[in-house]
Structures are given as C-alpha cells and as structure tokens.
C-alpha cells in the first residue's frame, strides 16, 4: 500500500478533531437546546442543516467548476413533491421522497444535458434560465396555489416510525441526510469519478485526451447534485409547512451560492459552516436594525473581495497554521535555549 502523495490532497483541511467536534456538537445540540428551553434555536439549526444539505449539493458541482445560478429550482421541486401529493391526500413519506429525488434527477438530467454544452458564464446564465422557466410554470399552476403557494395539510408520514412533526426528529433526519451525503461525497471525490471531475475543471482537453468522456461524468455529477438538493427541498417543505414559487426565485439560488462561499468552496464541511454563519448573521443583524441587509450585503461583498473562495473554512485553516507554526517556533526556541544552557554549563 502507498500513502497518498500530498499533491493529491484535494484541499488543505483542518485537523480531523475540529470536524469531529463540529459533528458531535451538532448531534448534541438538540439536547442542549431542550435543556436550555430555547426551542427557537432548534428551528434555526434545523433550517441551517437543511440549507447546508442544499449547499453541499451545490458544492459538488461548483467545486467541479460548474457554477449554477439555478439551484433553488431543486429546492422547489423537492418541496412541491411533498405539497402536490399532500394536496391529493397522499401522505406517504417514502413516496414524497421518491418524487423529490426522481423529479429533481429527471429535471437535472434534461436541463443538465443542455446546460453542459455551454461553459463558464454561459453555464451560469442557462441554469438561471431553466430555473426561471420552472418558476413561471409553478406560478401559473392555479390548481397548486399559483402565486400564493400552498400550505401543507400535514407533514410526510412514515408509517409511524418517524414523526416529522417532532422538531427533534426532523432535525436528526436532516442531519443524518446531510452527514450521509458528506460521507458519500468524501468517498466520491477520492474515487476515479472525483478525479475526472476535478481534472476536467482544470484541463478538460487533457482529460478527454486521456480517454474520459468528461461530458458524461459532469452530467452524472450534475444529476447527483440536483437529486440531493431535491431531498433538501423535501425537508424544507416539511419544515416550513408551506411551499411557494418564491422558494425557487433566482435570489434564493444566489443565497445558496453565498452560503457556499462563506463556508468555503470545495471544502467538505464548508456548507455547514456557511449555512450556520449565514443564518446566524441574518438572525443577529435583523434583530439589530430593519436595514440589516445593508450591513449584510456589505459584509458579503467584503468577504468575496478580501477573503475569497476559501471562506471561513480557509480562514480557520490559516488560523490553525499560525497556531501550529507558533508552537513550532516556541518549541524551537526552548530547544535552542536548552542547547545553549547545555553548551555553557
């Protein structure tokens, strides 16, 4: 067995303990919240986890060089796969989930096949165009609430073994889905599949010359991303008890991109950090002033200009490096002191 050469590391990452403690904190959070009696924070956290799942799915394609400005469409598809069957009194959760994943995957396959024929700026705009098409389709569906959206009569049912009406259950369901996807993504990116995706981001011609059908790989990547975002939509619909076309407005797609870049593009845990930071910031600022978006927008601009794509995750890595090199230096100084004292008895 070979150790992986360091050049194959996808991105610099924090020490494993940091991620582990983040996961443990997320797992224990509902208990802490229940003890403190601040049920509101569980809502905030659940929303953050659901959005983190959507952002993680976006991370898969943006990390592979495909910037989509239409990803909120999949949130909408997922949410409507709960709302429309519920409208016909079909409450079966597995069926909803199937519709969410299937619907999103089919939409991603059809639109992705077209979108992926373009690149860069054109890709951004064509994904936007498709999400706008879906938006206007939904707005014109009078049967399903049109502009006003639909209120869910009840949440998805799982034959009694999962009660999504319980806030903690919904939270853990979302968290499991998120961690599961992160695990799959972690494996996927280290598999040949991930190599091809990264390779085609950096030099597509070369990947093709090596014999990889990059288009097919990218399409698969796009479909996976869409389907996972559909699951996030399913969760979001159940969480808010309300779905509307507003969920797939282009500004929501931009919000998802923002969470991604706050957390750090391409970092596995970036989406969690990004979604949490985004929602907390929103919460704190909106409590502070009505005009919070002024500060919010300014902060976002500053973040992009000054920090760049590695986001908070990148800043944390920088901090960790500084700490480590600080330790090493102080260690060296002690060593040299020891040597000095040894040399001059």
């Amino acid at each position: 067995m070979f150790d992986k050469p360091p050049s194959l590391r996808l991105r610099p990452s924090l020490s494993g303990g940091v991620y582990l403690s983040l996961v443990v904190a997320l797992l224990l959070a509902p208990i802490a919240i229940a003890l403190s009696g601040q049920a509101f924070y569980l809502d905030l956290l659940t929303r953050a986890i659901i959005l983190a799942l959507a952002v993680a799915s976006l991370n898969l394609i943006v990390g592979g060089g495909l910037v989509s400005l239409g990803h909120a469409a999949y949130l909408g598809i997922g949410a409507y796969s709960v709302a429309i069957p519920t409208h016909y009194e079909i409450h079966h959760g597995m069926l909803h989930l199937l519709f969410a994943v299937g619907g999103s995957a089919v939409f991603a396959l059809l639109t992705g096949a077209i979108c992926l024929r373009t690149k860069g700026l054109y890709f951004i705009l064509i994904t936007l165009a498709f999400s706008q098409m879906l938006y206007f389709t939904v707005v014109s569906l009078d049967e399903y609430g049109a502009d006003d959206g639909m209120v869910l009569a009840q949440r998805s049912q799982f034959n009694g073994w999962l009660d999504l009406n319980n806030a903690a259950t919904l939270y853990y369901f979302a968290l499991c889905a998120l961690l599961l996807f992160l695990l799959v993504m972690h494996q996927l990116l280290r598999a040949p599949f991930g190599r091809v995706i990264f390779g085609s981001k950096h030099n597509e011609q070369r990947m093709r010359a090596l014999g990889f059908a990059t288009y097919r790989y990218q399409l698969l990547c796009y479909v996976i991303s869409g389907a996972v975002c559909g699951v996030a939509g399913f969760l979001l619909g159940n969480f808010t008890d309300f779905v509307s076309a507003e969920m797939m407005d282009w500004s929501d797609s931009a919000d998802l991109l923002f969470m991604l870049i706050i957390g750090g593009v391409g970092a596995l845990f970036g989406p969690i950090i990004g979604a949490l930071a985004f929602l907390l910031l929103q919460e704190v600022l909106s409590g502070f002033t009505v005009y919070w978006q002024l500060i919010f927008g300014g902060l976002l601009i500053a973040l992009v200009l000054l920090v760049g794509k590695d986001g908070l995750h990148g800043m944390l890595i920088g901090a960790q490096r500084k700490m480590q090199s600080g330790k090493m230096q102080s260690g060296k100084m002690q060593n040299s002191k020891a040597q000095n004292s040894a040399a001059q008895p």
Partner: protein
Amino acid sequence: MDGWLLLAQLFNGLQLGLLLFLLAAGLSLIFGIMDFIHLSHASFYMLGAFVGAGMMALSGSLIVALVVAVIVVFLVGVLVEWLIVRRLYQRDHLDHVLVSYGLILVFDTGAHMLWGSGGNVIPLPAALNGQFEVGGLLIPRYRLLIILCGLMVAVGLYFLVTRSRLGMLIRAGASNRTMVSALGVNIDALYRIVFAIGAMMAGFAGFLIAPITEASIGMGNEIIIIAFVVVIVGGIGSVQGAFYAALLIGFMDTLGRAYLDDLLRLFLSTQAAETAAPALSAMLVYVLMAGVLVCKPQGLLAPTGFHKKIKLRDV
C-alpha cells in the same frame, strides 16, 4: 383578431423592447468588454427612478428631474466601479455574481432607508397625460414619449459606437481586450466610462418607466433577468444585437401574453389553454435564450471576431 388591438399590442411591445434595450445595451457592453456579470445593473435602474421621483417632488420639473437623475446615476456608477467592481475583473464569474448580488442588497436597503418602503410616483405634467387618437387606436402620450426617447438613445448610441473615438475603443475592447490594452489605451479609464455609461442608460430607463409603474424597491430585479436574456440572444458585446434582440423579446413577450391563449385554444381545450398560456408566455423568452445558447452561443448578432473561442463542445 382585432386589427387595432393588434396594433396597440405591437405598440406596447415596441415600448417594452426599447426599455429593455436601454438596460441591455449597457449590460452587453459591460459583459463584452469587462467580461463582468453585472446583476446589480438592476440597482441603477431603480436608482434612476428613485432619484427622479425625489427631484420631481423637489423641483416640479420633469426635465430637471431627468437631468439630475441621469447625472447622479452616472456618478454613482463611477463610484461603484472605482470602489468595488474594478477589483473583480481578474476574478472569476462566481465572484461577479456574488458581489453584484451583494450590491443589489445594499442598494435595495439603501433605497428603503432613504425613500421608505412605499413606492414613489413621478407625477406627469398635464401635457404628457392623456392620449392621441389615431383611427380606432388610443396611444397614451407618455408611452409615445418613451418610444421616442428610446429610439433617440439608440440612434445616439449607434453614432457614439460607430463614429466616435470612444466608440472605436469600445468596439475594439469588445472584440479583443488584450490587444487594446497592448496598444497603450488606458484600459482602466475605458472600463470606468463604459460602466458609468451603462449605469446611466439603466438609470434613464428606470426614470422613464417610473411614471407608469412608480419607483419601488427591487423594481429592477425581475427585468434585469430579461435584460440578460436580451444580451445573450443579441450577442455579448454587441449594441446592435442588443437592439434587435430587445425588440424581438419585447414583441415576443407582449404578443405572447396577449395572443398565446387564443393560439393554444386552436388545439387545446379552453381550460387547458387558459392554464398553459400564462406559463408559456412567461417562459417563451427563456426558451429562446436556451435555444440560442445551445445552437449559437455567441448570440444572433455577435461582433465579428469576438469570442471566437466559444463553440459548442462536442458531446
């Protein structure tokens, strides 16, 4: 089909098309020359409307309001370019989208702070209220004015781009940026002036529409997406392309909304036609854009020599 009604719809289409052109021309140049995705173009549209409404209330003169609005938007354009946007030209498109979205948030909230959350109307002087009657057709005077203004700007821009030294630089910049800067042109100044002219035209469009729809927060956020469609369809960096594409999309949108349900009724049930028509007519422009992107990504009227590198990937 009523002939006069059709004529009235064509008239509305022309008006929408020219407004779109005012937005899209600047957007297309900013896109073509700086390669910058400028979502916040919408904010300048809104700014023009708000400053115009404010000045109208203050001075009572439409001309003064117009002049002040256009100058203010121009200056804000220069400022935004200098402070923020110029730092982004070297970055990739993801950063462009994010920063310009951030700018939209800042501008929208700024307008909310300055002018309140309600809409601001620009009241029209009596001379512009009312309508012309031609045969069976009623043409609101103000709409006619919008069309005239739009055409005037289009002609002016045409001469600016094809006959002036600045226009020569703009065309050269759109077709080969690197070469222009290699020839010793101050590319930073060119970028700034193009950005500010684009902003100014967007502000002008916002000012023109404000008496009809009133100035409101986020008023540009929807039309800007249509303006992007115009830019793509017309070909990035081409003012002429933007003009034809804007008219095409203006007509398509207006006529689609007016007649699509009649058309669909020919081969669908009445109810199905009534459900499908609004969705289809709203989607029509995006379908056009997707079609253009797939079949002719450089746009229908791309400037020659521009973006030769863009071709379809072989699948």
